[in-house]
């Protein structure tokens, strides 16, 4: 006979404000099999847990039902409490009367009724629960970091420092990411390259770090502690082991008219190139879209001038298979395309630039060697208009609904530096709100206004029009003085919203890591588990999780590394015992389950069976690899003969829950 204890939590007023918890515990106390029922203000507190533990011992409970918050929040807490009191942890069931009841209903009478029904379902289920024992799986002591920007670099360095191997996969020919393109960094104005490139070099020199540049993750299989990943190393037509990075080929290549992606197309490069002087690895790459030799077999200049013999036009993409215990996503961001914002004339005038292009125009290693010149005529601009929130905080559907977070600060930086270097330049900044929360951020912005005389105007630019005389006529509104403004500008700089890298969505699917509607990766808990994906073993670093500046990215990268180290430090991981199991006598070997299994956990065996008539038959039956199975339950639904079942969530248990809910 089952002896079940019911524990109803108030969650302060979270549950008790909408659900009559006393009525719930009384009603559930009358359910068959329930010998003990109680309610308490905070069941997850130590005192609350002790109530559960004491009741298990004193009442000799065989099953426990906790009516509280989502099992995602505290199932582990209560299972642990049960285990410490000597009850198998899988004899604990959670009825979610917070997220699925009190938080979404207003009427106390009906919410209470629903809470009772949810509790009843859990009681019906726990009656059929069987004790389960978790197995163990080994941990591969190596981490994969996808993306080699500042986020990926910092995570990799921190993990490597703890003594674990780390691989960085970067799709560009060099690591470094967006930060390599920046000039100065707010709020201290240190040069981006000066603080980043030493870290890039550290990555290259660290014996625990392997960099796969110009490579992409192609396939991810396995699970936490045991990921198997296929990495596609794209052909760069240069032997990385031989190339010395001397750069001779990049000077001699006759194909000079390739838009230079590193400078955002503001100048050109050759078909064989090293993105920038401090690239890591400092190895040349041939752009197959422009190389004459690869396109029509005529040229070969780079091979002739290369003293190291590193050029290899026959090089093919290479697939590398590696195993990892943990995966860190650090795929970063890009500014949005401005096709939906034609009113700013970005496509009509070269003198309308994005803020990232402005970084290149002021960077000493940029196309103008750091002198601010207009792209159209190479003249010094005397009036510059900065437009903030281009596509950020946009509910019209043209842009992004969120705040891109970094634009207020980098625009203040651009405006301030322009005024410092070129005091004869008039600088206007149009804003919706200036948002500067961060250490020394607001002081920085105020300096731009108060010391450097930047004209900050609350209002938006409605239209930018190129004029015949080469000026840009800017039409805008000043919301504070309620005036229409017309400014004749030489340069307009658009603070374009940022969005997750295009590869994020497909990567999220590969990793079965959840994402939000804007393609940012979702964290396991927005406050308490901010660097973990809900998918075990997947960690998040940098802007792939949400807009961030460099200080915040580096902090998060370090946090992700700490989580990775915590995982890799373990020799064994406890497996989830709620895995699929096939009844071999009922299985007809149809392969339906194998086809739907997303983890490749099901195989088929030809097995001998002693039949009732004492003959021996060989039958094909399904077999589940419990270490690989994640307990998703897809196979139990697909199985036509009802042979497949999920431990802890058996068909009988689920039907019992449904019956309990539907019972009058």
């Amino acid at each position, binding site marked *: 006979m089952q002896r079940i204890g019911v524990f109803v939590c108030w969650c302060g007023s979270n549950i008790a404000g909408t659900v009559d918890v006393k009525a719930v515990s009384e009603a559930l106390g009358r359910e068959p099999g329930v010998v003990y029922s109680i309610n308490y203000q905070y069941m997850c507190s130590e005192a609350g847990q002790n109530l559960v533990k004491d009741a298990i011992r004193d009442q000799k409970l065989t099953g426990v039902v906790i009516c509280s918050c989502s099992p995602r929040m505290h199932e582990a807490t209560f299972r642990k409490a049960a285990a410490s009191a000597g009850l198998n942890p899988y004899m604990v069931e959670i009825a979610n009367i917070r997220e699925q009841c009190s938080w979404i209903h207003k009427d106390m009478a009906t919410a209470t009724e629903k809470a009772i029904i949810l509790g009843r379902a859990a009681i019906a289920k726990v009656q059929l629960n069987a004790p389960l024992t978790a197995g163990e799986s080994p941990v591969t002591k190596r981490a994969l970091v996808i993306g080699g920007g500042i986020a990926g670099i910092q995570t990799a360095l921190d993990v490597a420092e703890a003594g674990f191997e780390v691989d960085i996969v970067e799709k560009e020919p060099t690591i470094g990411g967006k930060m390599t393109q920046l000039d100065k960094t707010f709020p201290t104005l240190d040069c981006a390259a000066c603080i980043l490139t030493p870290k890039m070099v550290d990555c290259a020199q660290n014996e625990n770090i392997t960099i796969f540049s110009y490579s992409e993750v192609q396939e991810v299989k396995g699970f936490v502690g045991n990921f198997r990943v296929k990495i596609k190393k794209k052909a760069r037509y240069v032997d990385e082991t031989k190339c010395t990075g001397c750069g001779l080929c990049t000077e001699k290549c006759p194909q000079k008219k390739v838009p230079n992606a590193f400078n955002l197309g503001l100048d050109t490069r050759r078909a064989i190139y090293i993105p920038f002087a401090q690239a890591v690895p400092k190895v040349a790459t041939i752009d197959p879209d422009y190389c004459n030799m690869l396109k029509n077999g005529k040229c070969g200049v780079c091979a002739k001038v290369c003293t190291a013999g590193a050029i290899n036009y026959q090089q093919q993409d290479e697939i590398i298979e590696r195993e990892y215990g943990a995966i860190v996503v650090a795929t970063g961001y890009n500014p949005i395309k401005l096709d939906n*914002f*034609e*009113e700013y*004339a970005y*496509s*009509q005038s070269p003198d309308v630039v994005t803020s990232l292009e402005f970084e290149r125009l002021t960077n000493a290693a940029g196309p103008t060697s750091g002198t601010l010149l207009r792209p159209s005529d190479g003249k010094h601009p005397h009036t510059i208009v900065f437009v903030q929130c281009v596509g950020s905080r946009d509910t019209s559907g043209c842009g992004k609904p969120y705040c891109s977070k970094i634009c207020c600060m980098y625009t203040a930086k651009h405006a301030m530096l322009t005024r410092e270097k070129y005091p004869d330049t008039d600088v206007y900044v149009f804003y919706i709100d200036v948002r500067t929360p961060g250490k020394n951020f607001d002081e920085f912005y105020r300096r731009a206004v108060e010391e450097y005389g930047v004209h900050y105007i609350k209002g938006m630019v409605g*239209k930018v*029009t190129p*004029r*015949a005389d080469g000026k840009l*006529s800017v*039409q805008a509104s000043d919301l504070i003085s309620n005036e229409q403004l017309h400014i004749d500008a030489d340069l307009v700089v658009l603070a374009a919203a940022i969005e997750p890298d295009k590869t994020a969505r497909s990567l999220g699917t590969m990793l079965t890591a959840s994402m939000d509607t804007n393609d940012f990766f979702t964290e396991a808990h927005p406050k308490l588990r901010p660097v973990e994906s809900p998918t075990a073993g997947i960690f998040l670093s940098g802007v792939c999780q949400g807009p961030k500046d460099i200080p915040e990215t580096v902090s998060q990268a370090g946090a992700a590394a700490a989580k990775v180290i915590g995982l890799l430090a373990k020799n064994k991981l406890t497996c989830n015992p709620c895995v699929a199991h096939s009844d071999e006598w009922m299985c007809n070997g149809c392969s339906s389950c194998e086809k739907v299994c997303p983890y490749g956990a099901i195989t088929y065996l030809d097995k001998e069976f002693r039949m009732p008539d004492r003959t021996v038959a060989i039958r094909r039956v399904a077999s589940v690899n419990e270490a690989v199975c994640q307990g998703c339950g897809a196979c139990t639904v697909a199985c036509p003969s009802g042979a497949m079942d999920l431990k802890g969530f058996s068909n009988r248990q689920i039907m019992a829950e449904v019956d309990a809910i539907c019972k009058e």
Partner: protein
Amino acid sequence: MVFSYYPGCTLKNKAQRLDQCARRSAQVLGIELQELPEWQCCGGAYSMAQDEIASKLAAVRALNGAKELGQDLVTLCSACHNVLKQANHDMAENEDFSRNANNYMKLAEPYRGETKVIHYLELLRDQVGFEELAKRVKNPLTGKKIGAYYGCLLLRPGKVMQMDNPENPKILEDFIRALGAQPVVYASRNECCGGYVTLEDRALASKKSGAVLEDAAQMGADLLVTACPLCLYNLTKNAPTGHQLPVVYFTELLAQALGVDTAREDGR
């Protein structure tokens, strides 16, 4: 190619040249425009009031007329096009409006926005093709610098009109190029001319039109084209002294380039 054609009131009075040149040019281009029988005024301006039904019913009747003939509906006047297209969008997307309008009209079969409304310019771009049009030109307008004036109604709201990018359009520029002339892009080509404001504040309409004309002239335009009778009125009758530019309907240029008779039917 046979299409239903909705001219609208102004095109039968003040803006006869817009209508006549369009129909004669269509004939030359092998397009048959069949004027809708018993069409009524489109309402003149699309009412923004959510519960306004009566003023939009004439537009719905015209749309349903084309549906019954099984033809796409061609429009020409910017204002009529705007009203018909928006009313059609309401019939397809706004359930409340569509139900009320259908209840009121008691049609044999309820109308749900089935008719495709296309502007004459879209007809030239998508059915004839500007490349093909260029081949048909007999008197190319070589050397002419022409500013396209879109006004506000032809392209907006962009999501409903779906003709061109309302902030950086090119359909009229491509049209001008097809006729052999040189398009002049200027800032206020998609700004308001003053519209109906001229009825109560002529000075404001004059200011708005003046800004358009000045801007176009600065960029070197010596002629403006429009598809809207009200724009043409404001840009000519309300032009401030010293800012006058000739303004014609785009179909007048089309007829001229195709070598079609451009004389008015009423001989004026």
